[in-house]
């Protein structure tokens, strides 16, 4: 379970770069973009841990994001609690959602599981809009407090949690957990025949995935200072999946790179914001046809070979 030295150095350099860049550039605008990008990184990594390893693509990841974000919203705005309470609460609520939806849907095959999760998120989105007295409807909840007054400090907090997320999930992926999850991807019946409780591992990995996604949701909420039903939207789940495809499914760190890449690209194309979805879609098509392993994880693996 120990990291190879080259991976450790690579990860440290990446983390250090992410830490230094906003400080050196000193622009709140850049820091803000990067904070959002890091949130996407947390979401992408958490998606990858469950769906990337087991191969059961979850098209409703936004369910957990929205659950975490709205938890932050309720605690902070509706109940006036300090925003720091959101950080432990959001994952717990997201995990609860994952248990409720996971049990009935995890026994479904690939595309059906994907679409059942998508339906779950869509139902949640509709319910959020309908019960507007509680949730603020289409306008959502406004007036959340940030965790720090300084944007830079909030950025470092998000970076800290991103590192925690990636390290935890990568350690799990390299442990027997990871082997078992990949075996589930290979053949579930054989897993059963090998004495593994497949249902337990599927639900548990979904719960872990949900916990980190919910945490990311809370961090995002306390950055944007508002939450709305868009956080449950299908398109959010799809964007995250595209980021994972670009990064390289199953690697955990790849999706983080994918998230950073696509977020920065989007900002770079700000002038052509109508074309944003074009770009994402074209990239997705390109990846599906030519780079099924993704871009970043294979790239890193190549670099590793060269480094030796």
């Amino acid at each position, binding site marked *: 379970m120990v990291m190879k030295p080259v991976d450790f150095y690579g990860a440290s350099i990446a983390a250090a770069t992410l830490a230094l860049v906003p400080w050196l550039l000193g622009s709140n605008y850049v820091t803000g973009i990067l904070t959002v990008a890091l949130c996407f990184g947390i979401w992408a990594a958490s998606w990858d841990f469950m769906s990337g390893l087991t191969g059961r693509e979850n098209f409703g990841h936004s369910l957990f994001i929205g659950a975490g974000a709205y938890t932050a919203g309720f605690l902070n705005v509706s109940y006036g609690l300090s925003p720091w309470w959101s950080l432990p609460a959001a994952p717990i609520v997201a995990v609860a959602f994952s248990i409720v939806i996971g049990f009935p849907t995890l026994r479904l095959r690939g595309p059906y599981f994907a679409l059942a999760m998508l339906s779950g998120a869509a139902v949640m989105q509709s319910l959020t809009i309908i019960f507007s007295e509680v949730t603020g409807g289409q306008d959502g909840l406004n007036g959340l407090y940030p965790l720090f007054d300084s944007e830079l400090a909030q950025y470092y907090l998000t970076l800290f949690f991103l590192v925690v997320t990636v390290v935890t999930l990568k350690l799990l992926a390299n442990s027997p957990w990871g082997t078992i999850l990949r075996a589930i991807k*290979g053949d579930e019946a054989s897993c059963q025949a090998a*004495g593994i409780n497949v249902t337990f591992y599927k639900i548990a990995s979904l719960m872990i995935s949900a916990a980190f996604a919910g945490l990311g949701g809370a961090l995002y909420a306390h950055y944007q200072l508002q939450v709305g039903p868009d956080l449950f939207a299908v398109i959010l789940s799809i964007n995250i999946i595209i980021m994972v495809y670009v990064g390289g499914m199953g690697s955990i760190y790849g999706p983080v790179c994918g998230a950073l890449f696509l977020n920065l690209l989007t900002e770079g194309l700000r002038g052509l914001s109508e074309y944003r979805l074009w770009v994402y879609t074209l990239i997705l098509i390109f990846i599906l046809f030519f780079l099924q392993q993704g871009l970043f994880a294979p790239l890193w693996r190549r670099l590793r070979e060269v480094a030796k």
Partner: protein
Amino acid sequence: MTALLDVKGLNKRFGGLHAVKDVSFSLAAGAITGVLGPNGAGKTTLFNLLTGFMAPDTGIVEFDGHALGGLAPHRIVNRGLARTFQLTRPFIGMTVRENVEVACFAPRVRHEGHARARAQRFLDQVGLGAKSAIPVDVLPYGDLRRLEIARALAVRPKLLLLDEPFAGLGTSEIQPLANLIRELHRTEGLTILIIEHKLREFMQLVSEVIAMDFGEIVAIGEPQTIVRHPRVVEAYIGKTDAGLADIGRAGGDLGIA
């Protein structure tokens, strides 16, 4: 000696098809028994019922003194009843050793630790030791069979169910595999139940045969007796001529016919 496996009145229907009909038999610990029957006799269904992959309509299965009714397959495995599949199902995308490691993580054996080393040992035992690091996708068919056995051994079963282990193997591969099975039976003290319909190798391996046809047990006995049992012969004549030739040959090998 109490039986390791005790099956009473097992029944399974699929719509109009009575796949397993009133099946009852016992296996003594340490025995190596065969289930013989033409295609469609209900042999694999029987295995699925014993291992929890299907639920019986009626009947009791007692393993090691405990009833197995309604347990999920993985729990049955952790009680000591392991199986291989007729169509091998490796974990694609992983190496040969990782395939066995998965079984080393089963609750029954997890505490032993050092999964990698244990997996390697099981691979050595079945003759795949040198191939442990290659991806399982490129493994030839005969090796995949051995891998299935290694994976089943990794959970340290008391009873091992082998579903047509010789199916699809070329003549040069069959004898080594039969030797391996015999060896494992000897060294590990495993109780083994084999499904096959390739007569010769099978008859030389097992000490007792349960003959099935149309879901029912038609005879239980020693290989030499079963081969001449009228209903068994009838079942094979009814299905293929090759089967009859096999019976004759098997009888000749055993020095009877």
